[in-house]
């Protein structure tokens, strides 16, 4: 994928700007939905069931007469929220883990990384189902499930980069100057890993959006009445012949958001990834 979208020169990053613009639109809509939506996204009006687009309901209404546009807007907020918290959770645990393993080396390093492999091999969906059995379905469990899945991702990125940085001259120099390993990690390694992490986080956010949609589609994510794209898709399924629009709207929302984040991630990588930067220079 990256080979297709990577620009030939480092000066132009069309995918970066496209991605940033698309993401900004989604974030803006999500923020707006927190304070205003055209209608109350949870308000049902049975006499207005399954209406087509109109001046009152720009994207029509669903089976319970709820305003689809308002639901899609509120769904954006929930999707981003779940995904963002989950990725933050994954970074908060994964980055220190990767740093620690890279700096310490030895048995603990092995143990930590094998442990993260183990989690990595465990699909987020299974984790979510397990959490549901333990605590019941809900947004928080979706966040935790997606978050756990992200821990090894960030641990690996950090670990790989930190490992190669650890033997570089400037690190050896600070070590000779008597700096503690912790300070070296924070002052020298982390800032150099950061661009990689930002790129990775953007990609993970888009995967998080997809995972959140999949979980709510299966009824494991946010619970009604809170609207979510995944559940809108599920609800629309039996109505495909009557009102395909009900599936199209959340479907396009997911595609738009995920595409935007992916383009942004790609563009950011071209700009920030030191390895690519060097090669292009």
């Amino acid at each position: 994928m990256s080979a297709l979208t990577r620009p030939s020169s480092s000066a132009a990053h069309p995918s970066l700007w496209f991605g940033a613009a698309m993401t900004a639109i989604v974030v803006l809509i999500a923020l707006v939905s927190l304070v205003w939506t055209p209608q109350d996204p949870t308000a049902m009006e049975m006499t207005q069931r399954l209406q087509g687009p109109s001046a009152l309901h720009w994207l029509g209404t669903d089976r319970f007469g709820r305003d689809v546009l308002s639901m899609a807007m509120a769904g954006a907020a929930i999707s981003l929220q779940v995904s963002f918290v989950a990725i933050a959770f994954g970074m908060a645990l994964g980055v220190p883990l990767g740093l620690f393993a890279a700096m310490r080396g030895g048995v603990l390093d092995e143990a930590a990384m094998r442990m993260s492999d183990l989690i990595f091999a465990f699909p987020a969906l299974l984790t979510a189902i397990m959490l549901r059995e333990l605590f019941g379905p809900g947004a928080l469990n979706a966040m935790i499930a997606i978050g756990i899945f992200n821990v090894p991702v960030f641990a690996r990125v950090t670990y790989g980069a930190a490992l190669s940085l650890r033997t570089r001259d400037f690190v050896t120099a600070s070590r000779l100057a008597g700096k503690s390993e912790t300070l070296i990690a924070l002052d020298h390694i982390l800032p150099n890993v950061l661009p990689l992490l930002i790129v990775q986080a953007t990609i993970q956010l888009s995967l998080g959006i997809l995972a959140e949609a999949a979980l709510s589609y299966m009824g494991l994510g946010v619970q009604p009445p809170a609207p979510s794209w995944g559940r809108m898709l599920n609800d629309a399924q039996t109505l495909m012949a009557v009102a395909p629009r009900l599936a199209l709207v959340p479907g396009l929302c997911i595609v738009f958001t995920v595409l935007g984040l992916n383009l942004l991630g790609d563009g950011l990588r071209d700009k920030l990834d030191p390895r690519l930067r060097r090669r292009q220079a």
Partner: protein
Amino acid sequence: MIRLLTKACLALVLVTASVAMAPLSAAPRTDLNVGMRLEPPHLDPTAGAAAAIGEIVYANLFEGLTRMAADGAIKPGLAESWTVSPDGKVYTFTLRKGVTFHDGTPFDAAVAKFALDRARASDSVNPQKGLFEPIEAVEVIDPATLKVTLKRPTGAFLFNLAWPAAVMVAPQSAADNKTKPIGTGPFKLDRWAKGSQVDLVRHPNYWGAKPALNKISFKIIGDPTAAYAAMMAGDVDAYPIFPANENIPQFQADKRFTVKIGNTEGKTIVAINNARTPFDDIRVRRALAHGIDRKAVIDGATMGLGKPIGSHYAPQDAGYVDLTGQYPYDPEKAKALLKEAGVSNLKVKLILPPPDYARRSGEIIAAQLKKIGVEAELVPVEWAQWLSDVFRGKNYDLTIISHVEPMDLDIYARDDYYFNYANADYKALYAELAATSDPEKRKALIEKAQRKLTDDSVNVFMFLLPKTGVWNAKLEGLWENAPLPVNDFTAVRWRD
């Protein structure tokens, strides 16, 4: 060249196949794939209340002394005839001869006595013990004659004997019927693949007319989308009750399918835990009734196909009285009632079993309750969990469920039922009803019982579950209505 050869081979195979298939396709099919929304917890109708049990085994695998026909009429079953004494208290049944269970055990009056005594014993786990309560004594006159003496004349006695819970079971096999059901019916259990399907095959030594079908597979597919796909792909031939009403117009427009919208006895209610604060306060229960817009629930959850009910009684049954107007939708009144009861910021859990009607009604009802200041958290649960937590454990605030047994006013008089209603007046009223045999007086009492349940707002009575039957247009003999929650497939056959 190779492609040409492949094409030629393919054509040859197709031609051969169609020639080989030709004689087969002339004979009508003898297998039937039935779609079911819920999986039964086990297969013993004398030991479990889940309707899914009877929906598989009744008439197909197990038979009773009497049986119910598609129109609700009571027909001879394992009793070929009977006489009733002039005082209405003694029933003498002449049993069919030459009837054997699937394991070869002969059926006779001694077995029938065992089955009835087992069902009415004090330690019986029969889900409908009340059906057998009028029985005073069961006697074997000779192997083909059974005498049942009642405590009082009971007009519904032959009807009671036709219920799934009253089927005949043999002493040797009764204990294992949950997993290895042994009945006298034309079909026996072939296999039960837990979580996916139950297969019945024809019992070769059946006493009666040989059914047209050789094999019935009950496939458990509750997800509406999967159900629709299964019907369209022909993986399922018939859904006695299709899970999603919004697909009905599509089936109606498709010549491959027959669609019959009939009645069930399924009184769909918001069950209230009457023992739990604040629902022990009648004002709170009435507030719920005023706070739920029945019409909106019916429109949104059943696509308008459900019939409104105002009490725990189906409109097509004798003695029905329309009480749907007693608690008109009135959020203001509901709020006032809650305030009067001193309840504010009420947070409840609304437990939703898997069927579509429950999950969708739940979403609508939660939104409606929010308007009267009641925060209902939706808790979707699996069927087995619902049965154990709510039905047996009585651990719930509110739940949505359809009670599919006909005229089951008795459940409100039970001591240990999950509504926790425990009302002495109602118990007395029901006891009087049970002891009354005069049809006119019974009707009056049935009316009174309905009114009492509505007055007390024991549960929120919503709608009668529609029987949205969808099946292959080449099938004949399926029931249009469901006077009992059963699927009698003994007369079902494929047209040529």
